[in-house]
């Protein structure tokens, strides 16, 4: 039973256990929960499976965990954005599962929505559908894709109210609301915590039932790169 969801990054990150599957929001570093990832670099959970569009950039965001050899596997759509990923993959130190970005997003939504699988035309007839079940529906071939779920999700939002309702900022929204729905335990890093009632009920993107803990961000992405906020 959680009443006060407001948490300290270093404490709440201990929810992540060795062997866990983690969802981590962000398109590259945009909308990436940088403070939570930093806390994770100081916590000892290893053998992690990361569900994230990218593995951050070289030495930044999730790229830090890669350098620490904490990742067993990464599931995403575009690992090219971190040039070190290929090296780890080729040396057999990191497993990769590549999905088209739309399939990746939809699979996370399906995980949160109790959907057992869905059929998409994306990737049919390509190497990324190899070995996957297909089905002819109304004369067209579709490939069956499975939902993605995680033990813990680390997401980044713009503002949270004290109940845990979230809103997002511009294209930093990306995968975050989806991941907030698809993990057993959801930690949201936000730039600002406001009193309940301060977010309009019509504009809330992630209702509070999805959010277990809220952490105020310390690291943010600016034009100068990742920096500590003045708080």
């Amino acid at each position, binding site marked *: 039973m959680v009443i006060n969801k407001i948490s300290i990054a270093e404490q709440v990150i201990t929810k992540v256990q060795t062997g866990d599957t983690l969802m981590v929001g962000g*398109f*590259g570093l*945009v*909308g990436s929960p940088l403070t939570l990832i930093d806390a994770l670099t100081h916590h000892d959970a290893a053998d992690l499976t990361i569900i994230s*569009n990218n593995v951050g950039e070289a030495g930044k965001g999730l790229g830090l965990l890669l350098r620490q050899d904490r990742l067993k596997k990464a599931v995403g*759509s*575009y*690992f*090219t*954005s971190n040039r070190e*990923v*290929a090296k780890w*993959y*080729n040396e057999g130190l990191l497993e*990769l599962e*590549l*999905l*088209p*970005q*739309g*399939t*990746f*997003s*939809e699979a*996370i*939504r399906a995980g949160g929505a109790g959907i057992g699988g869905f059929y*998409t*035309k*994306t*990737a*049919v*007839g*390509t*190497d*990324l559908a190899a070995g996957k079940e297909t089905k002819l529906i109304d004369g067209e071939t579709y490939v069956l894709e499975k939902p993605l779920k995680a033990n813990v999700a680390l997401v980044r939002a713009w503002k949270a109210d004290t109940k845990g309702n979230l809103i*997002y*900022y*511009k*294209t*930093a*929204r*990306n*995968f*975050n*609301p*989806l991941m907030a729905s698809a993990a057993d335990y959801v930690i949201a890093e936000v730039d600002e915590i406001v009193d309940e009632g301060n977010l309009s009920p019509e504009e809330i*993107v992630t209702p509070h039932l999805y959010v277990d803990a809220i952490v105020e961000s310390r690291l943010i*992405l*600016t*034009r100068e790169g990742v920096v500590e906020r003045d708080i």
Partner: protein
Amino acid sequence: MTSKERIAKKAAEQLVPHSIINLGIGIPTLVANYLDKDAYYLHTENGLLGVTSVAEEDVDPLLVNAGKLPVGEATGASYFHSADSFSMIRGGHIDVAILGALQVDSKGMVANWAIPGKDIIGVGGAMDLLVGAKKIIITTNHVAKDGTPKFVEECTYPVTSTRQADILITELAVFQWKNGRYELTELMGDTNLKDVEENTTAFYKVSEQLLEKRR
């Protein structure tokens, strides 16, 4: 104008005003420079309808396009999460996707996500766009950096989709997919048919109108 700019301008001419356009990385991004920004709506798969260019002083690091480059926000723009964004793409709500390519072949297949022998570690939204957009325009240099044709008999690189690209635009010519094959409908600049022939291993037909005109 560079040859890339000429390709982009030609692609822009194919577009119907007030349509919803998704621009890929590279030459496709340049297409925006030839569009009336009030008459076209640019979609980017990371979650924005209403992409504009942005002045250096207004750059917001949290407002980027699918190539992770800073962009601006048009009046009447909207933001959405990735599943909603790809619902637009896969669901057929994007009028045109303009994409680059490594290879395009006689059957209309496009290869633009992986190179044999190199690690296959990134695909992004390429497969979804190629399957879902109502119309596909490929903009690319006619030959690869090493001079080998990119418009080939059959893709030797892994294909991105089994769906045909509707229009192929290079610095040499414009090809339209018609009745199960590509038709060369327009020569770019002072290119002649022989230039195209020498740099292409794909099968294509030269349009009657073009042959007529050249007679």
